[in-house]
């Protein structure tokens, strides 16, 4: 009988060893630990998955809400600017100015609104609208364009009430560049004495 045949014939006799009982207990403990760990990992994964889904939904909803809100604000603004530019009566224009002031009171200046205001300031609009626009523009004292437009308006304006409003505005802004416009008012024979007086007082203040 060859060695191979002998081993084949007595194959079972080679598996004589028994796993010790202590090892069986060790295995039970280890298995429980592994299974527990797996369950924990699975639970953790599920929680993470739920949280990510919830976070994604919240993000989408927030973004959707923000985007919709933004679109609505743009629409309101465009409508108001349109009303401002195409206002057929002085009162409708004035109403649009006040509405803009109310709607965008706490927001950063909007270039489209400012441009519409600048147009009113330059155009041959009514006094009330111009005064309302100047009040609205004074809410952005740090905006260079606003300051430039007010100085330019002071130089070109001929309506005494608007002139007075502009003088007070540049006084509040302590705008040194308004000196030339003030001199122009003072030297203009058409200017009312009250306007000239205010202009002189401001010029003196700026020269101090």
């Amino acid at each position, binding site marked *: *009988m*060859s*060695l*191979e045949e*002998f*081993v084949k014939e*007595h*194959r079972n*006799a*080679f*598996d*004589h*060893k*028994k*796993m*010790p009982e202590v*090892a*069986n207990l*060790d*295995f*039970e403990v*280890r*298995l429980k630990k*592994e299974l527990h760990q*797996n369950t924990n990992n699975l639970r953790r994964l599920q929680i993470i998955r739920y949280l990510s889904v919830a976070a994604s939904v919240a993000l989408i909803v927030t973004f959707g809400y923000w985007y919709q809100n933004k679109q609505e604000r743009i629409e309101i603004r465009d409508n108001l600017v349109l009303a401002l530019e195409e206002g057929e009566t002085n009162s409708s224009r004035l109403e649009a100015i006040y509405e803009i002031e109310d709607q965008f009171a706490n927001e950063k200046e909007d270039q489209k609104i400012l441009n519409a205001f600048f147009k009113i300031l330059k155009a041959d609009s009514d006094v009330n609208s111009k005064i309302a626009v100047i009040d609205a523009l004074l809410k952005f004292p740090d905006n260079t364009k606003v300051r430039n437009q007010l100085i330019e308006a002071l130089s070109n304006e001929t309506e005494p009430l608007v002139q007075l409003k502009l003088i007070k505005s540049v006084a509040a802004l302590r705008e040194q560049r308004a000196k030339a416009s003030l001199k122009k008012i003072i030297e203009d024979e058409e200017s009312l004495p009250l306007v000239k007086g205010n202009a002189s007082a401001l010029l003196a203040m700026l020269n101090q």
Partner: protein
Amino acid sequence: MQVYQMYKDMLYNVSFRIVKNEHDAQDTVHDVFIKAFQNISKLENDLNLGPWLKRIVVNCSLDVLRKKKKLGWLQESYELTETTEENVTYEDVTLKVEEVKKAIHNLKDKYRIIIVLYLIEDYSHKEIAEQLGLKEGTVRNQYIRGKRLLKQQLQNSKAL
């Protein structure tokens, strides 16, 4: 636990024959069951559970030896010159299982592992070569040499 109870002793014997250490064999069997439970989905047919577990225990046991750097001889193994297999029969020698086991146990690792895998675990030379990363010819020659040494040991023990 039912599967564990059913196969633990068989796997323990397989592992012990390779690692030659009871404690390592126990640990290896535990590792094998944990691995098997984690990868049970890879088992295509339940009827193959036993052979599947045996494959894993052989792999893990060889890994234990690798970790203990007891498979260094693999690097030294080279294509040995062809050794002709002697068709030895043991008609004149009465073989005893215990003696064969002891003789295998005393062989050097480089012969013992190949002898164990081929003779007892029913691996082919090709499978052993793949498992150990050796050429099939090397495994075949190493087996013949191992068997020769085994025979020598058995004859010596009879002579004593």
